[in-house]
């Protein structure tokens, strides 16, 4: 059984976790005859399209795409459709030509954690707002925060920065250093669009000796959960996305639809399937470790 796994950008931890969940499922169910080839698009929409197209020409039995923006791969998806190859998407947005997109609700996740942060701030204080518009998920999260903020007139956005995705960790680091120099202990909170920049922000705050800042991230990567769990850490919350479960779920659907030849309409609950993504705070973090 030939499966092509197309990463939008394999360097992202979330994609790695989806893959890990899938691999664990493979091991659990003893699928030694599945031949999975990895194709990384390195963050390029065009490479994603080419990878899908090549996989279609190769005539694989199924294609999985993770964290891509599939609207930019329409033509390639048509090729897969023409070749009768089922395509499963993970957090890539439902587009004609894929069977299903399994994802989490970015608006919902952001509203959970954003409101939590603002409440923890007591509805007032100064905020650093880090955003990232290039990725649809982080963009939606930022848009939600922006909307929510309108209802908190006493919270002042000290600075807003769009993270440079190609070197997000270093970029966040440098930017936060500059903000710390500029605002010092005026900073009460940092909103980061996902966990890694949140971690970078926490590092900078610690290094500068700022002790009383509230930082949130989203994704719930193990390191982030551990950070939240540290009692004195300034990272107060994240949202746990069930990436591993998405991977395992994709495996199950492939088994049922492609191998067992069940009807997709029976197997799939919807075209876009949202999975639960609970808020992780210092109180409940132990449950996620």
């Amino acid at each position, binding site marked *: 059984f*030939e499966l*092509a796994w197309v*990463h939008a950008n*394999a360097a992202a931890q979330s994609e790695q976790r989806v893959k890990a969940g899938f691999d664990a499922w493979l091991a659990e169910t003893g699928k030694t005859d599945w*031949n999975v*080839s*990895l*194709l*990384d698009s*390195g963050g*390029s*929409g*065009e*490479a994603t*399209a*080419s*990878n899908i*197209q*090549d*996989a279609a*020409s*190769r*005539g*694989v039995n199924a294609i999985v795409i993770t964290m891509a*923006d599939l*609207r*930019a*791969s*329409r*033509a390639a998806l*048509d090729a897969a459709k023409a070749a009768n190859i089922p395509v499963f998407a993970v957090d890539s947005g439902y587009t004609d030509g894929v069977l299903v997109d399994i994802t989490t609700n970015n608006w919902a996740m952001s509203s959970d954690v954003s409101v939590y942060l603002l409440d923890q701030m007591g509805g007032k204080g100064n905020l650093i707002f880090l955003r990232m*518009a*290039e990725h*649809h998920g982080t*963009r939606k999260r930022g848009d939600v925060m922006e909307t929510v903020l309108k209802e908190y007139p006493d919270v002042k956005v000290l600075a807003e920065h*769009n993270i440079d*995705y*190609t070197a997000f960790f270093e970029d966040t680091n440098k930017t936060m250093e500059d903000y710390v120099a500029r605002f010092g202990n005026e900073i009460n909170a940092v909103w980061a669009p996902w966990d890694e920049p949140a971690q970078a922000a926490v590092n900078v705050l610690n290094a500068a000796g700022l002790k009383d800042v509230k930082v949130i991230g989203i994704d719930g990567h193990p390191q982030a959960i551990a950070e939240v769990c540290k009692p004195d850490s300034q990272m107060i919350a994240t949202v746990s996305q069930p990436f591993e479960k998405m991977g395992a779920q994709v495996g199950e659907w492939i088994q049922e639809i492609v191998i067992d030849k069940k009807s997709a309409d029976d197997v799939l609950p919807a075209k876009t399937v949202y999975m639960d993504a609970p808020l992780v705070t210092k109180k409940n973090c132990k449950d996620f470790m």
Partner: protein
Amino acid sequence: MSDLTHSASADRRDTVFGIIPKDYVQRYSTLVVLVLMFVVFTVTVDKFLTPQNLLNIAQQISMLTIVGAGLTFGFAAKEMDLSVGFTVGLAGVLVPLMLVAGWSLPVALIVGLVAGFLVGALNAGLVTLVGIPSLIATLATGSILFGVNFLLTGGRAIYGGLPDSFLWLGQGRIMGVPVLAYFMIAAVALAWFVMERTIFGRYIYAVGGNQKAAELSGVKVRRYKAAALIVCALFAVVAGTLLSARLGSGQPNAGERYLLDGLATVFIGMTMLRPGTATVLGTFFGALFIGVINNGLNLMGMDTYIQSIVKGVIILVAVAVVSRSTKLNLL
């Protein structure tokens, strides 16, 4: 080495293995590796030699080839355009933005071309009038364009609302052949004709080959350096427009990888045909080289990271032969 070998070698060509004239090795060895690779993939990879897949390759390399053809003009004039990726990106957001805003396709396309012309003219002015070396000038304009591209879209990608006539440019087919392939062939043919058969191309090569000599022969050096940079930007906006049509989306950072990839095609091209010189056909084969490797290894189902390693090794092997027999000066 010396006068002595000289007169002798003119008629009695140097040979390799006693049969292949050395300058054939110099001109064609990289090309031979390309052909060999093609044969190996045909034999070992199932779906490689199918019309469908060959058209895929054509489609996949078309934008890269067009960017590379533009860079070839720059290289020929010994000017490097480091902003080319962002120029691709500029057209890639500007044209979709205009279309989404309701402008007609011809207007949007023309605005894209005009924008390319202006970028090229800016680069050209900085280089030929102010005298800033192109490496720095285009690095700086690249930084400026990066900002402009993201400002235009607010950082987000543009989707939807694009007319079918536009999408057809990037996704359609004529007689089964992708429209993109026709664009590529037209661009290569045009660039080849201009560079190899017209006075304009000859002068571009001349100002790059020896500026002083060109000057003393009455060639207007600045004019041709400027022209090369403008052509480079124009090819980049064509590629960027097609890219957004292919993706059905305007992505502000989609062009960035075209700089390094475009340079790679030109460099590989410089190892063949006229070693050490950037030629349009060389660049085309360079793009084909990269396209065939990517496609073949993908079809083999090779892991991306291993692909990257294998790609590096193939490039090294391909150019090692010619490098041993010629002194190549790429810059």
